[in-house]
C-alpha cells in the first residue's frame, strides 16, 4: 500500500517536456535527472528541483502520458528520483510505458477517467495487489487494468536489469 499526494497533469504530457532537450545527452541518473524533471511541462517546474520539492507521490494523467516518441530512460529515472511512486493514466505512450516496466515504476492504466475527479494535492492510496486506487480527499475509488504477471516479477526484482542479471548468474533460460 502506497499513500501520498498527487499531481494532476493536463492531457498530452510529452516525454520531451518531462525531460527537456538540453538534458537528452546527459547521463541516466535518477538524482541528476530529477532536478529538472517536468521542466518543459509547466513554467513553474522550470527551476532546479521545482517538481521534486512538491513531494508528490503520484501523478494522475489522461491520454498518452509521456508521449511524443522519445525512448530516453531519463524520463523514468527523473520521475523516480523526484519521488514518484506510481502514475495513473487513461493511456501511456508505449516507449515510456515499456521503460517504466523495465524500471519497476508502476504506470497504471485505469478506464475510470480518474483524472476528471482528481485535483492536485488530493491524497491517494494505491493498493497494487488489489488494483485499487482510492482518492481519500474526495472519497472516491478507481480500479486499475491488471498488468501481466511478468510486470510484477520485474518490479519485485527491482527492474529488468536485476531480473536478467539474476537469471544469467543462475544460468536460467530467459523465456
Amino acid at each position, binding site marked *: 500500500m502506497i499513500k501520498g499526494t498527487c499531481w494532476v497533469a493536463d492531457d498530452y504530457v510529452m516525454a520531451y517536456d518531462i525531460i527537456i532537450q538540453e538534458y537528452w545527452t546527459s547521463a541516466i541518473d535518477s538524482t541528476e535527472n530529477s532536478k529538472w524533471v517536468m521542466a518543459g511541462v509547466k513554467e513553474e517546474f522550470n527551476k532546479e528541483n521545482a517538481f521534486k520539492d512538491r513531494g508528490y507521490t503520484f501523478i494522475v494523467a489522461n491520454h498518452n502520458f509521456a508521449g511524443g516518441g522519445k525512448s*530516453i530512460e531519463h524520463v523514468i529515472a527523473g520521475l523516480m528520483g523526484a519521488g514518484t511512486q506510481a502514475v495513473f493514466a487513461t493511456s501511456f505512450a508505449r516507449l515510456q510505458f515499456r521503460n517504466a516496466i523495465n524500471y519497476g515504476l508502476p504506470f497504471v492504466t485505469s478506464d475510470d477517467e480518474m483524472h476528471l475527479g482528481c485535483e492536485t494535492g488530493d491524497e491517494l492510496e494505491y493498493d497494487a495487489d488489489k488494483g485499487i486506487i482510492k482518492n481519500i480527499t474526495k472519497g472516491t475509488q478507481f480500479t486499475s487494468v491488471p498488468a501481466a504477471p511478468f510486470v510484477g516479477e520485474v518490479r519485485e526484482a527491482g527492474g529488468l536489469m536485476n531480473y536478467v542479471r539474476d537469471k544469467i548468474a543462475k544460468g536460467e533460460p530467459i523465456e
Partner: protein
Amino acid sequence: MTITEKIMARSSGRNKVMPGELVWTDIHTVMTMDYLGKTCFDKFRSLGKTEVFDKDRVICVSDHLVPPPNQKFANMLNEWREVVKQHDITNFYDLGRQGIAHQIMVEQGHVLPGTISIGTDSHANTYGAVGAMGNAIGVTDAAVAMATGKAWFRIPKSVKFNITGKWQPWVMAKDLSLHIMGMMHWNGHLLYKALEFTGPAIESLSMAGRMTLCNMTVDLGAKNGIVAPDKVTERYLRNRTNDTWDFLTSDDDAEYDMVYDIDISDLAPTLAMPGKLDDTVTVDKLLGKKFNKAFVGTCTNGRLEDIATMAEIMKDKQVHRDVNMILVPASQTVYLEALQAGHLETLIKAGVAIDTPSCAACAGIHTGVAGDGDIVLSAGNRNMTGRMGSKKAEIYLTSPSVVAASAIRGEITDPRTFDV
C-alpha cells in the same frame, strides 16, 4: 495470424501467438548509436557479460553527434569509439562511413524480413519497410538484447490500412503519413498497435516511400509499422544481404482490431502545423505562407528518391533569396549515389547547402538549428516547440517536393502547380 503475429510467433518459438500475450523473442539485430551507446555497453557489462551475444548482430552507428560541433560531443564520441572497439563490434558505422542509424540498418542489410530488429531510437519502426518487425526500445532493453539476443514483447493488436488508388505526381509517402496522422490523431487509437500497410498503392510504392511510411508510425503511437515483403523488397535486398528470408504475409482470416481504407487518388500535399504532428492541413490552406529556412534530410526523408525529387523540381532554378536551404543526405551511400546521379550538382547550383550525413537539425543539436523567430519548412519528422533549436521558432512539416517547390518561391507552394 497477421504478419506481425507470425514474426513474433516465429521469433519466440511458438506456433501461434495472441494479442495481449507476453513473450520473449529472438532478436535478429540490435542497433545503438553515439549518444546512448556507451550507456548500453556499460549496462550490458553490469549484467555479468563481457561478450555480446553476436558481434555481427550488434550494429553501432554514429549519427546524432557527428561531426562533433563542440568539445562535449567530441569527448562523448571518443568514449563511444573506445567502447565499440573494446567489444570488437563488426559493424561500426562511424564518421566517414556514417549515416542515420535507421537508414544504415535497412540499406546495409541488417534488417531481414520475418525477423525482429530493435534500436535505441524511436524511429526504429522504419525497419518494417522490408517486412521486419522494427521496434524502438530503451538502453535497458538494448543491454539485455546485447547480452542474451532476446527482448520481451506484448503481442500487439493489428490495424490494417488498405491503401488504394494511383499516386499523383509530386505526392509522396510523407503526405500519406501526415494524412493518417491527421486522421488518427494522438489520442490513443493506435497506441501499442501494429500497423500493417497493404493494397495496390503500397505495392507500387518504392522502398524509400515504405521507409517513410513505417518510420512515422512511432509518431502515431504505434508499436510497429509493416509492409509485407514483395518483389520491391526482393529487388531492394538482393545485393544487401546473403541471409535467407521468405515472403511472410498475413493470413486471409487474420484478425484486425480496425481496418481503414484510404484512396490516395486525390490525396493532396499535406503539412503539419507548428507544435503538433496531428494538426495537419492540405497545402491549399497555406499557399503563400512565407518562411525563411528549408530543411530536407532525416531518417524520414533523406533518401535518394527524396533528393532526386528535389533536384527535378529545383533544376535550373534558384532558392529564393529570403530562404536558407539545407540538405543532409541520410547516409554516405545516399550521398554518393546522389552525387553520381548529378543531383547534388543541380542542388548546389540552385543554392542549396549540403552537409555530411547525420541527424542534423532534426535533433536540434547541430547543423542548421533554428533561431528565434525562424519559420522552418522541414521534411523531417517532428515539429514540437523547440525541436530544431529555439522555442521561438515554428516548424512546418511536409514532403521533400513541397519543401523544394516552396524554397524556390519563398512561400508555401503546391508542387503540383509549380512549373518544373
